[in-house]
Structure formats: structure tokens, C-alpha cells
């Protein structure tokens, strides 16, 4: 009897999980399907799900009209650059907070998180003026700096959580064996925290890839990443839904594939330390 209930519950949970998963994925699926329709089919009512004349015309048009690879390369540089720079700063910071906490460590952590509570537009003008004066407008360097600063609280928090799970005694043992602080972080702590660092890296690449406020506002023609590429196909006057869908699919495809292949690490990283 218990087994029957358990099996029924299992089936119920499985169906519910699939339903939630499909509901979350449906807008992406719809975008991908729309990208293969003509503009007329994209607005047809009732909409056709799978039975329409599939076409690659939108992808051809988008490729002709925009330089996809330049935007793609900018996205790669900006997202990887900001994540790596963030990790270089955050690993020592998280180490000190996890293993040598001070009286105010919790407050510092909360303060770091509080910077995420300010709407970005609130600091747009000051940052824009600074960037203008130091010549960082429309540069990949400028975006790497801004996205590093924006994602730093999340990186520090995630790493702090992982580091707290590592027994301090191991680091103590390393110290007793004569390891310097640098050795301790690089040769002892980092290898043990590789899964946590990997999932932090992945999550931040995704966050930086999808960031659309600063990447749109601080770039023009040269450093614009894929977010600007998508925005260029959105129009309040003129129906370009199919082309917009093609541009969106091209923009999200790399990160979708990355997420698909690294989902195990991502899930593990995100749930690490959640259950004790």
C-alpha cells in the first residue's frame, strides 16, 4: 500500500515537474518556432503550432542586415571577461569572509547585497559621465568593468556559501605544513571548491550574457553585444515578429547550449549548502 502511494506520488510529481518545465520553456519554444515562419504566419490567428511552411528566410535576412558575429564576439568577451575578473576579486574576498570572519562580516555581506537593490537607472547618469570622461563609452573594457561590479555581490555570496562548507581544519593543516596564504588559496582551497567555482562561473556568464540595461545604454556601434542585436529588431511600428524571433533565437542559442551541457553543475552549484 505504502509502495502504491509512493509510486502514485512519484508519477504525480513527475507530471507536475514536466508541466512546470514545459510552461517555463514554452515562450522560448514559441520564439524558436516563430523564427521559422513568414511574417504573415507569425501574426496569423489562430496561430499554427507546427503545421506551417517552414522557412529560413528570417535567418538569412537577419544575417544580411546585421553583423551577428561581431555582436556574438562582443558578448563572449564581455561575459567571460567580467566573470573571470569577478572571480579574481571574489575568491580572496570570500576566503577572508568564510575563514577569518570579523565582527562586521555579516554586515559587509548584507551591504554588498544591498547594492543590488538600487534600480540601475538611478546611477546611469553618473556612470555615463564617468565613462564619457575616461573614454570608456562603447568599449568592451568599460562593459567588463561595469558587469564585474554588478555581478560581484552574487559571486562573493555564492563563493562564500561554498567556502563555508569546506572544513577549516584542512586549511589549518596546510598552514602547519608551511603553506603561504597564496598557496593556501590557490593550491588547497581552489581545487576543493572547483565545483562551486565552476557553477558560479557558469551562472555569471549567463547573467552577463543576458544583461540588457548597461549593455544597451553604454554601447553604440563598436562594443554592442547580442542584447543590442535583439533590440535592433524590435519595433513599435512595423511587424517584424518573425525576424525578431530569429534574432532572439540566434542570440540565446549559444547560452542555451552552454546551459544544457552544464545543467548538472549548475543545479549542483545552486543547491549546494541548501540542505544540511
Amino acid at each position, binding site marked *: 500500500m505504502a509502495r502504491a502511494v509512493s509510486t502514485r506520488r512519484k508519477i504525480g510529481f513527475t507530471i507536475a515537474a514536466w508541466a512546470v518545465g514545459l510552461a517555463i520553456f514554452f515562450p522560448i519554444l514559441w520564439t524558436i518556432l516563430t523564427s521559422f515562419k513568414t511574417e504573415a504566419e507569425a501574426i496569423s490567428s489562430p496561430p499554427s503550432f507546427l503545421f506551417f511552411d517552414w522557412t529560413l528566410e528570417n535567418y538569412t535576412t537577419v544575417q544580411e542586415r546585421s553583423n551577428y558575429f561581431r555582436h556574438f564576439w562582443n558578448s563572449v568577451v564581455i561575459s567571460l571577461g567580467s566573470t573571470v575578473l569577478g572571480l579574481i576579486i571574489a575568491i580572496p574576498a570570500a576566503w577572508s569572509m568564510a575563514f577569518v570572519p570579523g565582527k562586521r562580516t555579516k554586515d559587509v555581506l548584507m551591504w554588498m547585497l544591498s547594492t543590488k537593490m538600487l534600480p540601475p537607472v538611478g546611477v546611469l*547618469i553618473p556612470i555615463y559621465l564617468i565613462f564619457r570622461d575616461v573614454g570608456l563609452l562603447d568599449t568592451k573594457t568599460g562593459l567588463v568593468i561595469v558587469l564585474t561590479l554588478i555581478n560581484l555581490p552574487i559571486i562573493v555570496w555564492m563563493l562564500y556559501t561554498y567556502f563555508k562548507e569546506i572544513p577549516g581544519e584542512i586549511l589549518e593543516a596546510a598552514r602547519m605544513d608551511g603553506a603561504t596564504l597564496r598557496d593556501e588559496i590557490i593550491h588547497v582551497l581552489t581545487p576543493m571548491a572547483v565545483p562551486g567555482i565552476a557553477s558560479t562561473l557558469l551562472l555569471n556568464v549567463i547573467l552577463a550574457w543576458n544583461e540588457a540595461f548597461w549593455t*544597451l545604454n553604454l554601447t*553604440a556601434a563598436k562594443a554592442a553585444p547580442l542584447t543590442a542585436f535583439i533590440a535592433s529588431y*524590435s*519595433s*513599435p511600428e*512595423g511587424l517584424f515578429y518573425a525576424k525578431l524571433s530569429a534574432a532572439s533565437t540566434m542570440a540565446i542559442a549559444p547560452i542555451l547550449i552552454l546551459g544544457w551541457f552544464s545543467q548538472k553543475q549548475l543545479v549542483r552549484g545552486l543547491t549546494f549548502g541548501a540542505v544540511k
Partner: protein
Amino acid sequence: MSIKRNLLVSAAGLAIAASAAHAEEITIATVNNGDMIIMQELSSQWEEETGNTINWVTLEENVLRQRVTTDIATGGGQYDIMTIGSYEAPIWGAQGWLEPVGDIEGYDYDDLIPAVREGLSHEGTLYALPFYAESSFTLYRTDLFEEAGLEMPDQPTYEQIAQFAETLTDRENELYGLCLRGKPGWGENMAFIGTLVNTFGGRWFDENWVPQLDQQPWNDALTYYLDVMEKYGPPGATSNGYNENQALFQTGKCAMWIDATSAAGRVFDPSQSDIAEHVGFTAAPIAETDKGNAWFWAWSLAIPTSSSKTEVAKDFLAWATSEDYVNLVGEEKGWVAVPPGTRVSTYENQNYIDAAPFAETVLNSIKAADPSDPTAEPVPYTGIQYVSIPEFQGIGTMVGQQFSAALAGQKSAEEALQAAQQSTMQEMQAAGYTQ
């Protein structure tokens, strides 16, 4: 011989070097619509002729507005040319943010439609050159009107429009009598409602900048709008902007649609529209007065004062807004695709008149739209569907949200107007217009 050849080679080299030294790279920020896409495609000809190159930054209209406002207000200098509307041109010109463009040698200013030129000027100085202009008008299904034995007058009234809509609405077959904008925003639902209020005899502000949203004409206009939308409009109208209504009209779900004249070319194109053969056009309806019943908008090209390449930018402006460019589009992309509403010569061109049967209606709508005299009662501002003050973007969007809530049935017309009046009053007091 050898010396001669060397001299020739050197001279050619110097000429190439000189032209390369003068070649500039300019950045143009623009919106994504059919006319601008054509401009991008054809601009390679200007690049070849001049040796200059263009970086295009194409953005969605609201993103572009935020982006260029930030850049221009802070003197960022990222753009050499920007696409702006008739709302921005006089305000930014007055602020000293735009280069005057009324002095380009050889440019045919007299060919510009006077209302368009006026709309892009501040105190007589022209700050942008028009790329295409639009007004608003009524689009309707001639086949449905014929079947129902109805006749659309040249100048319909809103009362007649409601009667037609009642006759033509067939909800069971997903046919809606009247499609109007419902999506909140100063350039969305408020563009239409602004003209509706004008023709119902209302105005945004009196001569002392006191908001007038608590006056009877606003109540009459909003009540009419909510009533016809509820009875004859499509479901979920609060999310319908220009694009959504175009999609509904093109797929045969709207009997009438009051919106931008620039829609004409799109709904008339059989490759885009299911009902291309059955589209009729007539003037925007009127109610109590014929003043301000149709809006005016001109997408234009302007040069920010922060640009260091003013001369090259002016050269591009002159090329892209010229009669020659109109002819180039006609020859390369078809006459129905030429940018409308800016030049008198376009409407004298037989090729265009033959290809675009809506040309005369559009021209008449644009000519009749007078942003300097938009209302029955006197006002301290210019602009038909907008008020040419910097605060209007915020005020218009906030009022649009109130009206959208009323359309969704969340509040009554009176409640929406009361809230809109209160917020507008606060905004105007904070900005120092009133005490």
C-alpha cells in the same frame, strides 16, 4: 617615361591618401521600421560616392529615445546623426542640443511640406530634416461596408463611426467593428486619445498651464472611447498598440481602424495583408470641432551638437532626405515604398500617385494637421497628440496608464480622470509651471 610614370603613380597615391584622409566614419542611431531599413540598404551608395562609412545603431523606439536623450544631455558624443521625432526636435533645438540644419547649400527647402518644416523648427530655426511624416486617418474594409450597405463619408464623425461599428461587429466570427490603441504610453493609447480629446473640444492645459483633465470634454471623449471599445473593440485591447492592431486589421478582424497614415503602404501590400484589395481610407473622424482630430508626427534626422563630424553628417542628411533619394527608393524598392509625407514633389510624382491610391488622403491629412493650433480653445503649447514640453513623456504615460486601467475595467472613467488630473497637477507644480 619612367619619371613620368613615377610622377603619375605618386600623384595617384597622393590623391588616394588625400581622399582617405578626408573620409570619415559616422555613427547613426535609428529606429527599426521599413523606411529606415531601406535607408540603411541604400546608404551604401552614399558611402561609395563620398568615401565615408556609416556605423548603424538600430534600436527599438523607446530604447532609442532613452539612449539618445542620455547621450545628448551628457554630451556623450557617441552619435553623429540621430533619428528623432517632431516632439523632440523643437525641445532639443531650444536646449541647444541640436545643430541648426537650415543652411545646407543646394538643399531644396522649399519642397518640404510647410507643416512638416514648421513642426521641426523652434522660433523659425530648423533643427532636423524630415525623413518621413505621418498623420492619422481612418482605414476601413470596403467589402464589409458594401455588404452592409454602408457608405463611409469623406469626413466621418465619431457618432457615425460608432454606428458603423455597431452594424459591422460580429463577435462570433471574430470581426470587431473598431480597433483602437489601448496599450498605455504617451506614444501609444495617448496618441489616439489626445486627438479624440481635441476633437471633443478639450485641451491638456489652459493658458496658465492648469491641467484640464477634469473638464467635460475629457469625460465625453474617454466615455466614448471606453464605450465603443467595450461594445465593438477586440478582446484584450489594453495590450494593443500599432503593431497588434495592424495584425488584426491585416488578418481581417477589424472593420475599421483609426491610426497612422504610414499604415497605408503596409495594409495595401498584398504580400503582407489578407485584405489588401478591400482597404479604404478616409479622414480621421471629428466630433465637436475639426481641430486636432488627426495627429502629426515626422521621423527626422538631426545632428547633435556633441558630434565632431557636422559637415559629413549634414551631407548625409541632405542625401537621405532629398527628392533624389525619394526617386532612388521608387526605382530600387518600388514607388509604394517611398518615404511619404515630407516633400511636395513626392505628391506630384505620377509614378507615386499611380502606385499609392492613398497618397492624396495622406497628403490632405498631413496638410490639415496644424501642431501650432491644435485645439478649439487657446493653449500655451504646440503639438496635437503631445504637448511640446519635456515633462510630457512622463505625464502622457501616466495618464495613459490610468486610461488603460479604465479600459481593463479596473476603474471608471471618472476615477481615471480624477487620478490623472491629480497626478498631472502635481507634476506641473513640481516642474514650476503652476503654483
